[in-house]
């Protein structure tokens, strides 16, 4: 078998002048979308790295963390006075310091989520249209109150004292719940946390599916990133956006097709190693004295908050 190299390959490469005149291709929408997926992948790395640190919080059993999370979220939901909620906020902040996480970065995310879901979304509830009461900040005054069906729009519309109390309480509840969830996410490896759901009676097969889905999100993100790099390295000159969209949609189809093949092969690999319709997962390590002490502290803190 003889190699017959096409003659153009034996000639010098592209004319430098032509390259200099070529317009730079714009891939901004592509950049943003695909780079975000790459960032997601990197955050998984960061999460896993944090989880493997040898600090007090990281060492606690995922079982205890899961029980504590459920218990404290229930406490946060039941407690309806600000003082207790603020104490919980301080307590969680102290836990973040003990976990030696990057407080600034983590709290940026927490406040963003709490601001969107705990403030912006519920802010209208503080208006006297929804929560009647004494107006402490007037926004608008209309000529006369408007009535239609069972609703009344008062003459003065503004924030009420009761309304702001309700909104601030909801904000604190969401802030505390989100920060608690973030604390667990950043200090526990995802696989071991998923396995801790066994204590709630979640079947192994279901946990296996979640683990697989998590793995494929990672693989998919990496495939998308690699596809992006491959596109960038080969695209040059002025290409229409419609052409780029066509290329991308073609690649997406390819990725889905590839995923299907991977799923099938993974299934074969499972069958080959004895899978017969029911998965048995390995249980976690036994609980240590430190785990029990942590649980007692959390329970005692919750009881104290309730009776505060």
């Amino acid at each position, binding site marked *: 078998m003889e190699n017959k190299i096409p003659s153009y390959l034996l000639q010098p490469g592209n004319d430098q002048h032509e390259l200099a005149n070529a317009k730079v291709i714009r891939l901004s929408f592509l950049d943003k979308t695909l780079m975000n997926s790459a960032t997601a992948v990197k955050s998984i790395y960061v999460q*896993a790295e944090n989880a493997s640190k040898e600090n007090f919080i990281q060492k606690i059993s995922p079982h205890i963390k899961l029980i504590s999370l459920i218990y404290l979220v229930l406490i946060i939901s039941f407690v309806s006075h600000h003082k207790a909620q603020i104490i919980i906020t301080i307590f969680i902040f102290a836990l973040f310091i003990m976990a030696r996480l990057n407080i600034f970065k983590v709290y940026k995310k927490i406040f963003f989520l709490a601001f969107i879901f705990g403030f912006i979304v519920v802010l209208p509830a503080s208006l006297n249209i929804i929560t009647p009461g004494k107006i402490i900040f007037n926004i608008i005054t209309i000529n006369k109150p408007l009535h239609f069906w069972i609703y009344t729009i008062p003459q003065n519309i503004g924030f009420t004292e009761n309304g702001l109390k309700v909104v601030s309480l909801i904000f604190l509840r969401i802030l505390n719940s989100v920060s608690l969830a973030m604390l667990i996410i950043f200090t526990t*490896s*995802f696989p071991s946390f998923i396995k801790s759901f066994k204590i709630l009676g979640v079947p192994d097969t279901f946990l296996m599916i979640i683990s697989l889905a998590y793995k494929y999100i990672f*693989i998919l993100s990496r495939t998308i990133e690699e596809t992006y790099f491959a596109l960038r390295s080969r695209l040059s000159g002025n290409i229409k956006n419609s052409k780029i969209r066509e290329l991308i949609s073609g690649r997406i189809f390819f990725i889905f097709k590839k995923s299907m093949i991977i799923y099938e092969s993974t299934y074969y*690999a499972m069958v080959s190693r004895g899978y017969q319709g029911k998965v048995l997962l*390995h249980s976690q390590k036994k609980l240590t004295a430190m785990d029990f002490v942590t649980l007692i502290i959390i329970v005692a803190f919750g009881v104290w908050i309730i009776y505060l």
Partner: protein
Amino acid sequence: MDHIFIEMAEDIISLKNINYSYYGKIPALKNINLSVKKGEMVAIIGLNGCGKSTLLHIINALIFPDSGELFFKGNQVTENSLSNKSFGKELRQSMGYIFQNPEIQLFCPTVFDELLFAPMQLNLPINAAEERADETLSFLGIEYLKDRPVFMLSGGEKKKVAIASVLTMNPDILLIDEPLSSLDPKTQTFFIDLLLELNRAGKTIVFTTHHLDLIDHLQPRVAVLTEEHTIQKTGTASEILNDEEFLISVNLIHEHVHKHDNEVHRHFHSHYVFHKH
């Protein structure tokens, strides 16, 4: 002694007139007849796309042929016979399959879970399974990967974990698709030694490859799959490797150009045996 044992041993796997095609259109295997004796080492060699992996899938009863028969320890393997739990379990317990692409073979949350998966499905007591997994990790020098999620491993690490995950089953028959792919040279040597030792201990080994040097190292019985998806010849390693004309005819060795200092020249090429001038 080993040779005499193999001659007298029973067929542990037997394929008769196997035909398989993808989607009923693309032929993958045509009229395959092959038997493997207990304790034997068999290599299926051929170019990419000739059906080597498909053949291993059929031997492991992951897919079933369009026509023809597969026998395991004298019992015919069909979808029906596999639904008999004890037969299905015996077959799965006896055969360990190391896939070419470790990416698809690893599906558990962590490396340790991966090694425990098969022993646990096969109902091995948990303490024994954990002991096996720990021993295997240390044997392969990958203890440091124990608690790592599998998607955070490098290509070589994934391959090692895939090998370890099958070894913990302690199967009597090892099916290996391209044993040396994704392994660095040092690990390749380690793995070749391991295969020889396992075979000496009585394990049956069936592997696929297109590297003739591996055949020379392991000296297995060889079945040559051609681009026409049929087995054209079977024989001992030396019978196959010394039949230069045949290897050229099935494109397993070919002429190529290379350089020695500044001298460029052309000769038949296969990295080990036929590198002659």
